[in-house]
C-alpha cells in the first residue's frame, strides 16, 4: 500500500524523528543507571566474597550483610537520624560561621593594609597549628555540648577561607581598578561591584576543599569528647567501646554519603553563582 498523502507522510516522518531522538537519550540514561547499580552490586559482592574467602573475623571486618543489618537497626530505632541531625548542625553552623568570619576578616584586611601587615605573622602562626590539637582546649572552654564541636569546625574552616578570600580580593586586574576610578566609584562601590565578584571563585574553591574538612572536624570533635548529644562521631565511639565493627562501618557509610551530598550542594551553589565565569 503506497502512501499518497504528503501530509500524512510528513507527520509520520516527524513522529519517527522525535521517537528516534528520544530513544537513544532514554537508552543512555538507562544504561548509565544500570552501570551504576552493577558497580554498587559488584563492590558489595566482592566485599562479601573477600570476607568469606579469607575467613576474616566479623568483629574485625564485618561482611556487607551484617553492616546492612546494623544500618537498618540504627535507622528504624531513630538513633541514626538523630545522630545525623546533630553532626549536620555542627558542620553547617560551623561552616557558615567560619566562612563568614573568614570572608569578613579578609575584606577588612584587604581594605586596611596596615592591619594586614600587623596581623599577618599571627595568621601564619595560627594557620600552622594543627587545629585538631586545639580540640581539647575547646572542650575546656566550651564544654561537651555542640559549642566545642562548632568551634573546631570554625577553626578548621576559617583559615582556608580567609587566605583564599584575601588572594581573591587582591586579584582584581589593574584595568578593572582603573575603570572604577575613571567612573569615580567609591571604595565601597569598588568592593561590592568588583572585588567581591573577583574573589568569589577563590572563595568557592576554598568551600569545596574545606566542606569535607568541616565534617571531619565535627566527627573528630565528637570522638574526643561529647556529652549527652549523640552525633555520628559519638556513635562510632560507642560502637568502638563495644567492639561493634559492623556499627562503625554503618556510620562510615552514612558519613561518606553525607560528605558526597554536602560537596554536591557546594558544587551546585558554585555553578549557580559563578555561571558567568564558566567558559562557554
Amino acid at each position, binding site marked *: 500500500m503506497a502512501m499518497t498523502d504528503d501530509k500524512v507522510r510528513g507527520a509520520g516522518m516527524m513522529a519517527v524523528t522525535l521517537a528516534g531522538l528520544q530513544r537513544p537519550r532514554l537508552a543512555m540514561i538507562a544504561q548509565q543507571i544500570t552501570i551504576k547499580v552493577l558497580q554498587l552490586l559488584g563492590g558489595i559482592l566482592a566485599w562479601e566474597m573477600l570476607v568469606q574467602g579469607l575467613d576474616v573475623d566479623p568483629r574485625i571486618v564485618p561482611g556487607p550483610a551484617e553492616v546492612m543489618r546494623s544500618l537498618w537497626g540504627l535507622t528504624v530505632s531513630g538513633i541514626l537520624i538523630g545522630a545525623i541531625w546533630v553532626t549536620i548542625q555542627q558542620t553547617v553552623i560551623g561552616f557558615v560561621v567560619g566562612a563568614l568570619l573568614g570572608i569578613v576578616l579578609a575584606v577588612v584586611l584587604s581594605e586596611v593594609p596596615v592591619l594586614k601587615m600587623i596581623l599577618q605573622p599571627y595568621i601564619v602562626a595560627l594557620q600552622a597549628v594543627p587545629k585538631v590539637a586545639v580540640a581539647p582546649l575547646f572542650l575546656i572552654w566550651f564544654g561537651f555540648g555542640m559549642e566545642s564541636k562548632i568551634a573546631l569546625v570554625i577553626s578548621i574552616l576559617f583559615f582556608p577561607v580567609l587566605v583564599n578570600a584575601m588572594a581573591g580580593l587582591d586579584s582584581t*586586574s589593574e*584595568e*578593572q581598578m*582603573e*575603570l*572604577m*576610578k*575613571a*567612573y*569615580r*566609584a567609591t571604595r565601597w*562601590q569598588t568592593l561590592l*561591584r*568588583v572585588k567581591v*565578584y573577583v574573589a*568569589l571563585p577563590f572563595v568557592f574553591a576554598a568551600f569545596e576543599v574545606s566542606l569535607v574538612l568541616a565534617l571531619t572536624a565535627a566527627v573528630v570533635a565528637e570522638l574526643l569528647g561529647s556529652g549527652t548529644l549523640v552525633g555520628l562521631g559519638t556513635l562510632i565511639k560507642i560502637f568502638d567501646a563495644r567492639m561493634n565493627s559492623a556499627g562503625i562501618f554503618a556510620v562510615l557509610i552514612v558519613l561518606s554519603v553525607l560528605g558526597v551530598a554536602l560537596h554536591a550542594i557546594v558544587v551546585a551553589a558554585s555553578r549557580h553563582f559563578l555561571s*558567568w*565565569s564558566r*567558559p*562557554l
Partner: protein
Amino acid sequence: MNMQISQTAGNATSTKASPIHVSSLTKVFKTRTGDEVTALADTSFKIAGGEFVSIVGPSGCGKSTVMRIIAGLIDASKGAVLLGTDVVTAPSPEIGIAFQKAVLLPWLSVARNIALPAELEGRMSKADINARVEQLLEMVRLTGVGQRFPGELSGGMQQRVSIARALMTEPSVLLMDEPFGALDALTREHMHDELLAIWEYSHPTVVFITHDIGEAVYLSDRVLVMASRPGRVVADIRIDLPRPRQPNLRGEPHFARLGAEIRALIPH
C-alpha cells in the same frame, strides 16, 4: 535625554562639549631601579569643543600618558590640563572613557555593564537608565543582546559595549585609547563609521589615541603626531577631508597624501 538615533550629520559646532587645554605637561616616571624616565616633556595643545582629534605616534611616545592625565587617572609632574575652565585633578563626570581592552565586568549582563557609570553615579532613575541603555544598544547595533553576558560576545561586540558604556552618562568629552586595536581590519573599518555616526550625532570632544595612521586620518579633524624620548607633540595636521566621511575616501589620493605626510613625521 531627548536623544534620537540619526545617521545624518549633526551640527558641526558643539556648544556644550568642553574644550581641552593641555599646557606644558610633563610627566616623569620612576622605574623600579630608581631611574627617572621622562614620558612626557613640556607638551601643550588645545582641542576645541566638539572637535575630533587623534594622537598618533610610536609606542612609548607618551600618548597614553597624555590621555590618562586628561582623564584624571594620573597626575602630571608639571603643567596642567584644563577641561572647559576647570583644572583636571581627578576623573571628571564630564568624561567618558574607552580603553584599549573592553574591560567589561563578566558577572554583569551587557545591559548592566553599559549602565555601570550611571549606577555608580546614582543620579539617574532606574527607568531612565533602562531607556538610555536600550538607546545605546541600538546606537552600537547590539539591540537584543542586553541580557547576554560579555563572555558570550565576540571581541568586536565587546568593544562596542565598552563604547556604549563610555557614552552612558552623555559625556561631553570622549577619551579613547586604541579602542579598536584588537579588532580585525574589517570590523575596525565598520567601527569607524559607527563611531563617526555617534560623534556626528551628539558631538562630544573626542581624543582618540591610535598607532594606525589611516584610522587617524579617516576619523579626525586634526591629527597630533607625537615622538618619543622624551614624549612630545611634533606636528599638528589638519585633516581637511569632507564630512560625513565615506568608506571610499580611503582610496582617494588626498587621503593617501595626508597619510604619507603623517607617516613621514613619525620618527623610526
